């Protein structure tokens, strides 16, 4: 660990770079915010100016309308007060990025959220060499190991066909930014008719305008639902699945696409018939691999199973420490209903807020 003052420090507003005068994914309004991706726990309104990956500008503008947003192509260097900043693909959702920060020969990388699996809607994760890696660890327990995502998609389509044969609607819960579009992009026209909840549709249009191909989508209104009763595939945010909105789909089969679906208890608690393990986060081996690929000396872990993963990485000879942030309040976390808790030393207390029901979804 370098002895100089750190490149990033934790302030009341979030991760701050004193030398460069900017915050990364601040949770309070600041002068200059660099945004890794547009999920509501990373991109909050109120800052004077935003910098994000060029491919993510439209997505971010949809989430924070009226904000002053500048886009930077992946890999392009920016000089901010003598600090060299560049953004690199994180593979999480459209336009997501890791933030590389270099100052006086020392390099820090803030991962944002990331995954290593292929995804037709976003650029793949690229490891970036650094001294200090600030990594998420949403799925930082070894029980979380994803299989081949294309097999889960195949299972999803088989479930959808089975439902149609039984004359039942198939309703699947998926996060409105990223997961929903990733699933949709993996479907074919013959999976239709595909109905989309009102909270998801606007983001599908943004994805289309950014060149992502999606199948034909119908609005999931009562009228449309009625005219396709018993044969529609419906995509909705997790918060809608348990609510009164579902009355429009009597006797529907309910499913969800999320990394949390790996655990039966989560599926059963929600009364889901099927769970598809499709995550936009790295699984445990993925976290280990990504962290190793950075060649970092220090890894700071945020949102997720911080303590167990840090202890595990220390047994592997890495200097791993917890870092208390307010990231992780997105819908992936909302599926869990439980999981992480405040670390015994009082760090990561904000993790307690993850234990929310799906109402944690904030729609613009």
């Amino acid at each position, binding site marked *: 660990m370098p002895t100089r003052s750190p490149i990033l420090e934790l302030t009341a507003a979030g991760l701050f770079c004193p030398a460069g005068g900017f915050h990364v994914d601040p949770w309070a309004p600041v002068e200059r915010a660099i945004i890794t991706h547009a999920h509501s726990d990373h991109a909050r309104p109120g800052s004077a100016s935003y910098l994000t990956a060029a491919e993510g500008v439209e997505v971010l503008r949809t989430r924070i309308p009226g904000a002053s947003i500048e886009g930077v192509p992946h890999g392009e260097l920016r000089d901010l007060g003598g600090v060299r900043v560049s953004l690199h693909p994180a593979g999480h959702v459209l336009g997501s990025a890791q933030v590389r920060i270099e100052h006086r020969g020392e390099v820090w990388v803030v991962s944002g959220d990331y995954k290593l699996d292929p995804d037709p809607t976003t650029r793949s994760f690229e490891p970036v060499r650094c001294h200090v890696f600030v990594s998420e660890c949403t799925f930082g*327990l*070894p*029980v*979380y*190991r994803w299989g081949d995502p294309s097999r889960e998609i195949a299972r999803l389509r088989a479930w959808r066909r089975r439902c149609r044969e039984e004359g039942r609607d198939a309703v699947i819960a998926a996060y409105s930014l990223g997961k929903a579009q990733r699933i949709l992009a993996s479907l074919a026209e013959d999976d239709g008719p595909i109905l989309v909840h009102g909270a998801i549709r606007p983001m599908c249009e943004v994805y289309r305008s950014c060149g992502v191909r999606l199948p034909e989508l119908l609005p999931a209104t009562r009228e449309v639902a009625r005219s396709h009763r018993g044969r529609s595939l419906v995509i909705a945010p997790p918060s809608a699945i348990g609510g009164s909105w579902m009355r429009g789909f009597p006797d529907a089969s309910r499913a969800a696409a999320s990394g949390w679906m*790996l*655990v*039966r*208890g*989560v*599926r*059963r*608690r929600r*009364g*889901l*018939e*099927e769970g598809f393990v499709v995550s936009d986060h790295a699984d445990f081996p993925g976290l280990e691999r990504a962290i190793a690929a950075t060649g970092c000396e220090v890894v700071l872990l945020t949102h997720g*199973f911080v303590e*167990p993963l840090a*202890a*595990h990485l220390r*047994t592997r000879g890495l200097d791993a420490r917890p870092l208390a942030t307010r990231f992780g309040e997105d819908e992936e976390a909302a599926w*869990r*209903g*439980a*999981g992480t*808790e*405040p670390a*015994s030393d009082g760090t990561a*207390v904000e993790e*307690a807020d993850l*234990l*929310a*029901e799906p109402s944690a979804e904030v729609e613009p």
Partner: protein
Amino acid sequence: MSVRAFASLVTDLAATTSSSRRVERLVHHLRGAAPPDAALAAWFLLGNRLRRAVRVGELRAWVAEEANLSEALVAACHDHVGDLAETLALLVPDPPVDVPDVPLEALVEVGLRTLATATPTRRREIVLAQWSRLDRASIFAYHKLLTGAFRVGVARGLVVRAIAAALEVDEATLDDRLAGGFEPTQEGWLALARPLDPAEIARRPRPFQLAQALPEGAIAGGRVAAGDDALLEGGGADLGPVDRWLVEPKWDGARAQLIRRGDPILWSRGEGRLDGSFPEVLDAARTLPPGCVLDGEVLLWAGDRPRPFSSLQRRLGVERHAPGLFDEDEARFVAFDLLELAGEDIRSRPLGERRAALESLLARLDAKGSIRLSERLRPLDWAEADLLRRGARERGVEGLMLKRLEAPYEGGRPRGSWWKWKVDPRVIDAVLVHAQAGHGRRAGLLTDYTLALRDGESLVPVAKAYSGLSDAELVEVDRILRRTIVGRRGPVRIVEPSLVFEIAFEGVQRSTRHRSGLAVRFPRILRWRRDKTPADADALATLAAMADADRRSEP
């Protein structure tokens, strides 16, 4: 049925909540299976289990070693997932792709039965060999069988219905055949589909008739109070006059049939044959004329008062009577129904007739012997019946049984024919002090609570409770608890005392094995007292006074 098919059946059953779909899946799988596999699948689904041959600690250690993880990390995973079998299945390193499927019978034979006699080293080899040849879903099913915690949340009745359909046997007939249990073998399975041989029939009990629970405050002037109709599903909104019912104490013993067709057999509903545990009852049964079957409860007595069910534990599981072993207490079979008389099945006759036959049968026996007639209470009206119920605790029974005098004896839980009407539970307000993650549907949520009462300045744990809150409340409590954790001991989280719950329980006794000095029976949560703080909770002395009051009422 292959292991993979069995695993997918288990997954299917957990996924659907519709009873008819569950039965459909069961029938489909049982029909398609070879008899030895179908037998095993049905046997496990009926809730039977093999004796656990591997310790949980061993499994955790082997997984840690194979996956190259610390045991602490494996423990953190277990805390998070909640279910051990599932945790371990998720941690076992991926087996090679395209492993061939295995018949269920082969897995049970090689992977389970051989463990019982194996050395620790050999046990490890056996378990690891299964890991390397099963896919993940199958490993989960294997672990479920291995840890003996095989519960898929499918009611026995549904499994029986499915077996009946798969074997094309009438459901009641099948229930009769299953009553004595069945061997999970090809022979056992095929035997379910054909009539039993007479020698076997002579050993089997009749399917037990069970009672429905009468909801709290359900009877007002003989009418089931409005609003409770849904609970009773229309099955007797009006109980009619009290003299249409046989009113008896609800005994707190082991339900059993005393079968005196030839040599007497005592068959308990929960434990199978109990002949060895209650030799004095068997001896007394030899004085009954052959050809009869009695239904009743086995209890231990102290003087003229029955002892609680827990006192039976020492006797259960004893296979052969050793002289002198049971001298200090007296077992009695308290008979309340007669199913066969002089070799004739009389179950279709009304209860009134059966009761009269039972009374005259027992009148010939020694009145102070080990077989007694269950007392018939004769309240004049429902108000008096309610008084009798309220006084049940003082008499060492759990409440009243109400049995319709015109009704025949039917296996299972027929509607509106037998009611159990329990004494009101005791109630205290207690403070949540520790919590632990639950299992199954509650996995990952802190739902298993330790509750405490005030004792001066300190809080003394008195009960653990797992049930009573809605799913929404469980999530809300979980959130509060996780913010107020002040320490941990293994999987247990110690929390800042802030939440108060109303706890109901059946009774309380002095105990030297509990820190509080008191043992409560069947504690469960009635409701969350959001209006109360720990300072408003009950004192330990209040609970102690309840224990002493119960004891004073003993002779």
